[in-house]
């Protein structure tokens, strides 16, 4: 039983992280119908920002500021910088393609992804950068229930993930900006005709989505300790999967999709074998997709003829 719970905790944590990346991916998709394959690389940049902040404040073992402050700075800096990067990316590379065929931005996304990966390689080097989280957030600071342990980073990831999801859901359904986002998603030109600032709205979506990726990058650094220039690829793939399986464009869907994949991976590793984990996860997802062709929480594209 405790093994089951431990795997559940592990799966939920990883899943929450996937979900966070998927959220941003899904938001951008929802508004622009754009598969932003560069999203994973923004996550990578977030990871690096976290690393360099730890280093600027003395390094993991010799921090000269309190840990909560450090973590806050890490999250804020990653959110702001990566969010800004997302906005710049939209302005520079995607905006000229607004009216292009849908497949065109796919190549731009690939170009941006190449660019970010290799610029990171150029600027930050190829070494694996290590956060050394346990040096400043000790494992014993978490909670221990029987033989199941949940450390404080895991708790932080879960709590933040939950809050961000609820926040986003509120933002989109309740606030004016959220309504504007949905309107732009539904019909960009019509939205413009009613006075919605489309450029601003899209920039806001990119900022939020990218900032989430940045935050997720820091979280991943804290959880898994390692950052390097190509971690974005796998993360982007997972995010894409989570978003689609949950129902692309749907916020709770992305969350659910991420959690599902995280937990499935964890249990398959635990109960079957890590060798088959990807295959089995794919198998499960294919079945899910065939049973619900629009994803778990996706709404069927309505077709009024």
């Amino acid at each position, binding site marked *: 039983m405790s093994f089951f719970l431990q795997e559940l905790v592990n799966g939920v944590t990883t899943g929450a992280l996937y979900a966070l990346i998927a959220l941003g991916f899904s938001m951008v998709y929802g508004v622009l119908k754009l598969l932003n394959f560069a999203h994973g690389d923004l996550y990578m940049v977030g990871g690096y920002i976290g690393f360099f902040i730890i280093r600027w404040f003395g390094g993991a073992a010799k921090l000269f500021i309190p840990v909560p402050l450090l973590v806050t700075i890490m999250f804020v800096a990653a959110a702001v910088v990566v969010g800004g990067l997302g906005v710049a990316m939209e302005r520079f590379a995607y905006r000229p393609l607004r009216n292009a065929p849908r497949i065109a931005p796919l190549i731009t996304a690939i170009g941006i992804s190449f660019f970010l990966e290799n610029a990171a390689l150029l600027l930050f080097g190829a070494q694996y950068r290590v956060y050394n989280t346990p040096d400043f957030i000790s494992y014993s600071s978490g909670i221990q229930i029987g033989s199941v342990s949940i450390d404080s980073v895991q708790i932080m990831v879960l709590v933040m993930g939950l809050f961000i999801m609820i926040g986003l859901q509120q933002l989109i359904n309740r606030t*004016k900006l959220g*309504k*504007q986002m*949905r*309107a732009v*998603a*539904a*019909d960009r*030109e*019509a*939205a*413009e*005709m*009613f*006075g*919605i*600032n489309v450029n601003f709205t899209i920039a806001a979506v990119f900022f939020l989505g990218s900032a989430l990726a940045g935050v997720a990058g820091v979280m991943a650094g804290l959880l898994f300790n390692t950052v390097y220039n190509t971690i974005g690829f796998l993360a982007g793939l997972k995010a894409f999967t989570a978003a689609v399986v949950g129902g692309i464009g749907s916020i709770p869907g992305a969350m659910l999709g991420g959690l599902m994949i995280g937990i499935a991976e964890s249990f398959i590793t635990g109960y079957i074998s890590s060798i088959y984990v990807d295959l089995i996860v794919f198998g499960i997802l294919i079945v899910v997709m065939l049973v619900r062709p629009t994803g778990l929480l996706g*709404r069927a594209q*309505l077709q*009024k003829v």
Partner: protein
Amino acid sequence: MLLSLDKVTTYYGQMRILEGISLQVGEGELVCLLGGNASGKSTTLKTVLGVVTPRSGRVLLDDKDVTGWPVPQRIARGIAIVPENRRLFGQMTVRENLEMGAVLRHREKLDDDFDRVHALFPRLLERRNQLAGTLSGGEQQMVAMGRALMSRPRLLLMDEPSMGLSPALVQQNFQIISEVHQSGVAVLVVEQNAAMALSIADRGYVLSTGEIVLTGSAAELLRSEDLKRAYLGR
């Protein structure tokens, strides 16, 4: 003048659509814009709204040059549109669509406006929680009209507002346009049904391949042999 276009030339990419259009709409006037298919009527409305910017010429609102202004600022000066093909937000409910009409009206109570729209189109009250994309063509047209009225415009642009409506609704629609007009709102309406449109309009313009070829009071236009020959028959 509430609205005037001064020698406006508009392109889509490399394609010239409007060529030196000049047109006026006075405060509280009902002006109709006629023309054959693809003559640039919708483009004219889009130019007024600012969705497309002219390459040369000026757009004046209240005698102020707004040519380079973005759409939201123009809308804030009291323009609203019933776009061609309705352009509803299909994945949003009827109610939300109506709200989007008033998106620039900050922190105001919208209840009165909802009541007014619902009074005009009771069907919309009945269907307020249906997704707009699943409405029938005519129902969608009602939402489009209601949405435009939500912003309490001073100048209402309408692009073929009666397309796809039942005869009763077409009647009602023209009546609504008249009422709106009588309440002091200026209206610039594009219609295929020239005779009907002219019967309620003050003045009219006829567009042909991007140029204004005829203009005059509604009564003059109705009598004009040119219009009969050129627009109503061939």
